[in-house]
Structures are given as structure tokens and as C-alpha cells.
């Protein structure tokens, strides 16, 4: 079953001349897939991720999320969609410094009008899932880089989204810590979650089920690895 489909997606940033970050991208992602998106710096990976995540609109082309065309929806409809169906993981974690791990994860449910007690409950479950059951009350400052990224992953998980988007989740981590995060992502995928992960690291990409390679805003390779990892 298709979770995500892009057809002829073009993204142009204004400028003179305008920058065409995506030049007609068409891909389709099924439920429970784990897809790596690779490409050189400036090839359009983050642009593609923003469009998939409905943080940006394509200049032309169509994006379907769970069968719905999201390229033309109103901002508030897209916000609702992100709140319920999409989980984001960023390279620089984006945790709120003043909040505990639990409260940071619970923020993932704030825009779904879920009460604080319930949010915190769900957040604890998610933190245990990422192996941080012993760090519930720690502030981001008191956590290591790998732990911070685990908190961010728990925040993406907590709303049970249809799709998790991770933009260079290991980019700020050393290779050993990064490896732990990749293991976690593989685990989560094994439990059935659909995950798109942007990475520079060809080694990591090789261990994912599927690898999409971008060059100058075009898909130049879309390879299934079969039995990966």
C-alpha cells in the first residue's frame, strides 16, 4: 500500500536566475519501507524532504500522502496533517532546552489537543522504545548527543505517524553514536514503521532496503537492496 507518492515534482527557489532544486522528481513509497535518500550537498535532498513533509510546496507536480493530494491544501490543513501523520527528525535535534526529555517528547502531541497527563504517558512509552527509560527527567543539556537524537526520534514516534522523515539524523554524531541511531531506525522499521532517511553516508545507505540517489535535483538511481542490513 502506498504511503507516499511524488509525481513530476519541481521546486524552484526565487532568484536570478531562479534555482531549480528539484527538476521533476517522481517516487513512490509503500508502507513499512525504509528508504535512504543520498546525494551530494546541494542535490536537493532537504528540499525534497520539506516538500514531502508539507513544510514547503512544490512549484509544480503533485504529492500524495496516504492517497491525498497535499500539494494544494491550505496551510492549516497541512498543519493538522503534520500533527497526526508525519514525524520529523532533524540533524540538529531541535529540543527545547528548558524541558525534560519527557516533556520534549510530549510536545509531539501538543497540537493534537491531547491533555498533558496523557501526553507524558505516551512520551514515556516512546522514550522506553528508544532506550531512554532511565533518562525521562533529564534536560537536553544533561544528555549526550546520541541520547538527544533518541529523544528527538521518540518525539517523532509518539504520535504514531504514517511516515517518519529524518534529515541527516547522524550528521551531528560521531560514527559510533551514529551507528546506534541507525540501529534504532532499523529496529523501528522492523516493527513496521515507514521511514525516509537522508544521509551522506553511502555505508549507511547500503544497509537500507532502498536507496534513492539525487543529482542536481533529479533521481538518478532508485535501487532496492533486497535483504539489506
Amino acid at each position, binding site marked *: 500500500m502506498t504511503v507516499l507518492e511524488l509525481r513530476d515534482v519541481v521546486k524552484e527557489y526565487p532568484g536570478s536566475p531562479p534555482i531549480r532544486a528539484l527538476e521533476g522528481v517522481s517516487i513512490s513509497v509503500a508502507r513499512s519501507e525504509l528508504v535512504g535518500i543520498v546525494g551530494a550537498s546541494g542535490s536537493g535532498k532537504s528540499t525534497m524532504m520539506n516538500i514531502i513533509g508539507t*513544510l514547503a510546496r512544490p512549484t509544480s507536480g503533485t504529492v500524495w500522502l*496516504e492517497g491525498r493530494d497535499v500539494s494544494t491544501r491550505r496551510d492549516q490543513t497541512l498543519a493538522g496533517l*503534520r*500533527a497526526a*501523520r*508525519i514525524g*520529523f527528525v532533524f540533524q540538529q535535534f531541535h529540543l527545547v532546552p528548558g524541558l525534560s526529555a519527557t516533556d520534549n517528547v510530549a510536545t509531539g502531541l501538543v*497540537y493534537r489537543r491531547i491533555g498533558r497527563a496523557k501526553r507524558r504517558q505516551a512520551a514515556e512509552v516512546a522514550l522506553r522504545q528508544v532506550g531512554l527509560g532511565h533518562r525521562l527527567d533529564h534536560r537536553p543539556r544533561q544528555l549526550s548527543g546520541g541520547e538527544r537524537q533518541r529523544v528527538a526520534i521518540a*518525539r517523532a514516534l509518539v504520535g504514531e505517524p504514517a511516515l517518519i522523515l529524518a534529515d541527516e539524523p547522524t550528521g551531528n554524531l560521531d560514527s559510533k553514536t551514529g551507528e546506534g541511531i541507525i540501529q534504532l531506525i532499523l529496529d523501528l522499521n522492523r516493527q513496521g514503521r515507514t521511514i525516509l532517511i537522508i544521509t551522506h553516508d553511502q555505508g549507511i545507505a547500503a544497509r537500507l532496503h532502498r536507496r534513492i540517489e539525487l543529482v542536481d535535483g533529479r533521481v538518478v538511481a532508485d535501487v532496492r537492496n533486497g535483504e539489506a542490513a
Partner: protein
Amino acid sequence: MMEATARSRIRPLDLLRSGGQGLSTRPGRTMLTALGIAIGIAAMIGVLGISASSKAALLRQIDDLGTNLLAVQAGQSVFGEQAKLPEAAPAMVRRIPPVEQAAALTSVSASVRRTNYIPESETNGITVYAAEVETADTLQAKLAQGRFLDTATVRTPAIVLGAVSAERLGITSISEGPMVYLNGHWFNVIGILDPLPLNPDLDRAAFIGYPTAAKLFDTKPNASTIYLRTHPDQVEGVRALLGRTANPENPNEVQVSRPSDALEAKATVDQNLTRLLLGLGAVALVVGGVGIANVMVISVLERRSEIGLRRALGAKRMHIAGQFVTESVLLSLIGGVGGAVLGATVTQVYASRQGWVVDIPVAALAAGVAVALAVGALAGLYPAIRAARMDPAEAVHPTG
């Protein structure tokens, strides 16, 4: 499958929390910014409180003194010369039913001196009056020393001094039997009055009996001023009658005044100062508001990535705007409440030092906090709109 109803919604309490979060992570900045508003509000409440307390004190004083005292003066004739009230005027005035008390005074051409060595031309600014025995009661004058004139002493060379007169003559006590010299005659000082708030001009007067004045200085019995107390509810009615009663032939020459009006005028004169100070408070508030707006703009820029994150987590533009307006309103609320407390404290301290009963208008406190909230909402609007308009894709990425 995606629910058709998946909407982005936030609980009001969570919106409040999201607004408070930014403040609690930067307590120092929060307090300094709130201080601007606090000063403005404190100034306004202090001014309102102090002027309300002083006005209340003044009105209470006026009430104590009574607003039912009227003064009838001869005024001037149509030819511009000092008119005289008819001899019968005091008796006529006393006959008006609501008049409870009355006393006539007639100015005496004599000067008061400590000794006969001082030249007669030095009057010390003291006016000598022939006074009826009812004068002290009618004016509700209290005696600092001794007694007022009575039916016996009006016939003797006895004199009662106003507070200022006594001071100018250097007489502080009557126990040594001080005497003063009036145009060739020695008088015993038998009493000294306390100051008369309603009739400060009489503080510079000295009172002798009518019979004595007539005998020694040839004073005519025509009153220059008649003071009277009316029933408190009939002041205006009596006032209207006084001209005709006191001087039936020339009612227009008669001047009727109410001494308490002068004090009440003082209470209203203060309002101009109050307005000026309120204006200054308002300026402080505007400056405080600009300060909040400034800090909020900075806060929005600093928290780009948080805004991006919240948008990624499903916040609508309205939620982001709401968060920053909430933050700004909370900021000004802290300032407003702090300012109200500060203003009330200042009023309390000032008023009790003045010996006034403290009167902090609750409405002013509420208005102060409300004004602070309004300032906060207004100041937060522009930064909030900027935050809401941020491109979420650019906001989540480290550099634009």
C-alpha cells in the same frame, strides 16, 4: 488511513504554557522587560492612589469642617465704595429658619502691637474685629489657649488672637497674662485660636467685644461680615435668601460665599497635576510597551528553529502567533501586577506618612493591570505576526 478530521488543535492551557516557556527559560530578560511596564503602571497607580488619598483626606477634612458655613459680606456699593450692612442684618439673618447659628464681625480701625514703643503704622498685618460672642461656635473655632469672648469680657479690654496673629506678636502662652497695645489702650490676651482651615484670613485677626470697640474706637454696630451655619440640607435655599434678608434695600451689594468652596476648589486644582503625572505614567507605559515589542522581536529571531519545529509538529500559523502574543501578554501581566503592587505600596507609604487614610482605588488597580495587558497584546502583535509568517522549511534548517 488518514482521518478526514485530522486537525491541528491546541488546548488553551497548552497555549498558555507555550507562551510561558519562553519567559521561564530567560528569567533575567523577562524581569528586566517586565520592569519597564511595572514602572509605568506603578507610576500611574501611585499617582491615582496618592491623589485619591489626598482628595479623600481633603474632602473628609471639608466634611469635618462642615460645608454649611456661609459668609455674608457687605460688598461694594454701585459707586464702588465699601458698603455697610444695615444694623439689623445679624438679627434678620438669625430669623431665617434653617439658620442655626450666626455671628457678626465688624472691622475696627486699630492696630495691634506688643508695646506702645512700636509705631502705630506697624499693623503686623493683623486686622482687629469687633466680634459677637457666638463667633467661636459659629466658626467652630477651637482655642489653643484660654477662652473666647463672653458676655462679660466683651465689655472689658480683652482680646482673642488668631493663630497667625499670636505668632506674629510672639505670644505663645497666656499663662503670664500677656497684654497688647491697641491705639492707646492695653488689652488682656484672654485666648488664642487654633488655625481655621475654612477661614485662613481670620488667622491673621484679633477679636474684641462690640461694646469695647464702640467705647474705645468708636466702632459702628454695622457688621462687615456675618458668618452663619445653616441646616446642612438647606444651604442653597438660605444662600438665595441672604442678599434680601441682610440688606433689603440693596440686595445686590451683598456678597455671599461658602468658605468650603475654596477648599473644594483646591481638590480639583490638584486634578491638573494628576493628569500631568498620569500622562508621564502613560509615556513610561508606552516606552515599556516598545521595550516588550523589541524583546519579542529578538525572541522571535532567536527562536526561529523552535518556531520551525513547532510548525513541523503541526502548529498552525495561528498557534505560533498565539504563542508569542501569549508570551508578550504574560510578560506585561508580570509587569502590570508588579507595578500594581509597587504603586499600591508607594501610595500606602506616602499616604500613611501624610497621616491620610489610605485610599487606593480598586478600579485603578484593575485598570492598571488591564492597561498592561492591552499594552502587552499590542506590543506582541507585530512580533507574533512575524513569527507566524516564517517559512517553516527555512526555520527548521540551521541557516537560511
